[in-house]
């Protein structure tokens, strides 16, 4: 807010001085104000730098949305880091207490807008990193990585890139998979699915695991409202779920029609999944639906594991087994998946970029404290799983988890460099497209046309 305030005030002063002059005068004073605001800001930044350099220790701030147990784990990681790097102090700043990333981004963007120096910040998706990189909020890391001779593509499952430059490191990797209620699976007499199963098999499984009526009904599967659930195939098998290489909408792809129709068939014909209108109307959540036993399986990322282990918030007694994300057909190579995750970036406005980089590198490669599945490919899988699950193997089946989340064949065709500053808006287009298809009873072609048109409008708006 400081910079804006300064600028507003200086603009006012300029206006007062210029009086109510001609249009040209006004324009000139308007043009001057950003400079005024700018110089003041840089001065302030330099002052801060001086005072920082005069001290022995450098303090960097890490902005995140962690709460509860995660914040405690983070404190241990920071303590370890500070011990190894005595000249750097790290201060964790959780911007929200609810763990809501939506609110986190709002606050973070406001801070960025007001010109506060941002050292290190966390992101929950590659697209969010690209968006901020496009706005000039983040610092490219290529030179620092080069100095450490780290090749990100070899070292991490996924790396946020924009315009050919690296803008963050992945400290947590969340490959998508299907979590299945073991009790329901056994009741239906089905084996744990493995690599190579398709969405048609998924539909079959859901149908067989649907039991009961009314309030006691257990649905075979649950689809949340996120774009990922509108067409997971676009995320796992297309280079980018919304855009093609030449930045045109990807919504014409056949997979959209196929998956939309699968969703409708499962809702209406099989009645093996809660209808979208129920999910939206009742604001259902994937975690409660699955862990309360309302739905026997959900496609989800590995972050579900921590929720499964959290029996205080999600009391349940069944074991969860894991299957890979289904493929659209048998021709899809084994291991093709969609990898979400948690990313750390350095702010362009940071005065201690090298120290910030040292911290995120440490965060992304250490396994002394295991928060979640690491993004580093070098991490020891058994160590991670034991640290994560501990003795709660009655809730999480380690064998299928290891075979799914840590299979060496796992790869993603997702191409982060296709991502743009408006990817988030395109996700809404996809979500709206599915809503229109299921709620307004459009045909898949009509829904695809709606999505393509809307996407083109957004692209045009941003290309100006």
């Amino acid at each position, binding site marked *: 807010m400081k910079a804006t305030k300064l600028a*507003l005030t200086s603009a006012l002063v300029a206006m007062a001085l210029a009086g109510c002059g001609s249009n040209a005068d006004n324009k000139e004073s308007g043009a001057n104000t950003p400079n005024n605001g700018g110089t003041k800001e840089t001065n302030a930044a330099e002052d801060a730098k001086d005072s920082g350099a005069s001290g022995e220790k450098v303090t960097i701030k890490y902005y995140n949305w962690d709460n509860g147990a995660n914040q405690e784990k983070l404190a241990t990681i920071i303590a370890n880091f500070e011990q190894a790097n005595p000249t750097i102090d790290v201060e964790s700043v959780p911007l929200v207490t609810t763990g809501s990333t939506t609110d986190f981004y709002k606050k973070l963007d406001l801070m960025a807008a007001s010109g506060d120096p941002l050292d290190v910040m966390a992101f929950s998706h590659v697209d969010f990193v690209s968006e901020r990189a496009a*706005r000039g909020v983040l610092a490219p890391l290529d030179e620092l990585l080069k100095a450490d001779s780290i090749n990100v593509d070899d070292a991490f499952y996924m790396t946020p890139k924009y315009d050919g430059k690296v803008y963050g490191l992945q400290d947590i990797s969340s490959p998508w998979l299907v979590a299945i209620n073991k009790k329901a699976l056994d009741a239906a007499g089905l084996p744990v699915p493995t690599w190579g199963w398709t969405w048609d098999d998924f539909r079959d499984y859901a149908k067989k695991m649907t039991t009961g009526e009314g309030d006691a009904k257990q649905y075979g599967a649950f689809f949340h409202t996120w774009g990922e659930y509108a067409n997971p195939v676009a995320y796992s098998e297309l280079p980018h779920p919304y855009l093609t290489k030449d930045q045109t909408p990807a919504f014409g792809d056949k997979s959209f029609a196929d998956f939309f129709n699968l969703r409708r068939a499962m809702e209406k014909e099989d009645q093996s999944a809660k209808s979208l209108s129920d999910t939206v109307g009742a604001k259902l959540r994937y975690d409660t639906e699955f862990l309360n036993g309302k739905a026997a399986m959900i496609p989800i990322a590995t972050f579900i594991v921590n929720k499964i282990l959290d029996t205080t918030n999600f009391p349940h007694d069944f074991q969860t087994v894991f299957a890979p994300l289904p493929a659209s057909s048998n021709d899809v190579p084994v291991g093709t998946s969609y990898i979400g995750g948690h990313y750390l970036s350095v702010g362009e406005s940071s005065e201690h970029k090298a120290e910030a980089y040292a911290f995120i590198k440490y965060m992304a490669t250490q396994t002394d404290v295991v928060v979640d599945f690491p993004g580093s490919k070098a991490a020891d899988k058994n160590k991670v799983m034991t640290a994560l699950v501990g003795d709660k193997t009655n809730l999480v089946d380690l064998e299928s988890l290891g075979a799914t989340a840590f299979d060496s064949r796992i790869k993603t065709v997702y191409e982060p460099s296709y991502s743009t500053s408006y990817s*988030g808006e395109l996700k809404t287009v996809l979500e709206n497209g599915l809503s229109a298809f299921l709620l307004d009873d459009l045909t898949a072609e009509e829904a695809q046309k709606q999505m393509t048109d809307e996407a083109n409008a957004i692209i045009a708006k941003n290309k100006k």
Partner: protein
Amino acid sequence: MASVSRDLGAGETRRRPFWTNRRKEAAIGIAFAAPEFLGIVLLGVFPLFFSLYLSFTEWNLVGGLKAIRFVGLDNYVALFQDKTFYLSLKNNLVYTIITVPVSMFIGFVFAVLIHSKVYLRDYFKVVFFIPYIATTVAVATVFSALFHPSSGPVNNLLMSLGIADPPRWLGSTDFALWAIIIVAVWQGIGYNIVIYLAGLTTIPEDLYEAAEIDGASWLQRFYRITLPMLGPTTFFLSITAIVASFKVFDLVAFLTEGGPNNSTNVLVYYIFEEGFQNFRMGYASALSWMLFLIIAVVTAVTWKAQKKQF
């Protein structure tokens, strides 16, 4: 000017001190008014013109003031081709056309009922006013539960009345807006009741007595005295309600977030989305000015229509 000419006209030759009483008083007056005036300029006038300027630019907010780029009328041209804008405008008009008269009518009826002889008058006043002062977040949470498509009380009632396939409310593109309208009406009634009650108490009793002596029936008294005397109240309520209905935001934000498929998107929510989620401050400013123009026109029309009537 008048004072100067009069001073000269007095034909005094002695030099008068600069601080005459008149000037002193003026200076004191200005000193008292200055803080408030500055506040208005700083917080009201400046942002107003700044947003007008912004509406001709492209600005992502995050890039700082340096990133402002002048684009002329581009934002307004884009606005007239923007489907979501038209959809939001349509939703907003439906919302206004239903909520304003309905909540005013119900409010009026209840006010008349409460004003006439009922027991527990104050109790009813409070009961109907509570929704108005309740936080929208709480109201939205309660109504989300009430409107639950399969196990909510609303649909259970409808089903027990024999409607086999009741609307899915917030989960339906056709009914989500209606759900919001219902909540808005429920929330707005209390305010209308209180203002109408205040209006009713200002009508002098002797008018009714005189009419009664002249043999006017209850209906005649109602149409000839109560309604016309409440004209200014109705006028005030309709103007404020129309303006407020164009600014509806909180209910939409907490109940549906403009969804599903933009079916409950309204102008202010769309401005919020464009400005603070997609960071297109220029376009959002253009939308805001469009909204201002619409409200100005609607208010002017209402004003004219009402002036004629009363």
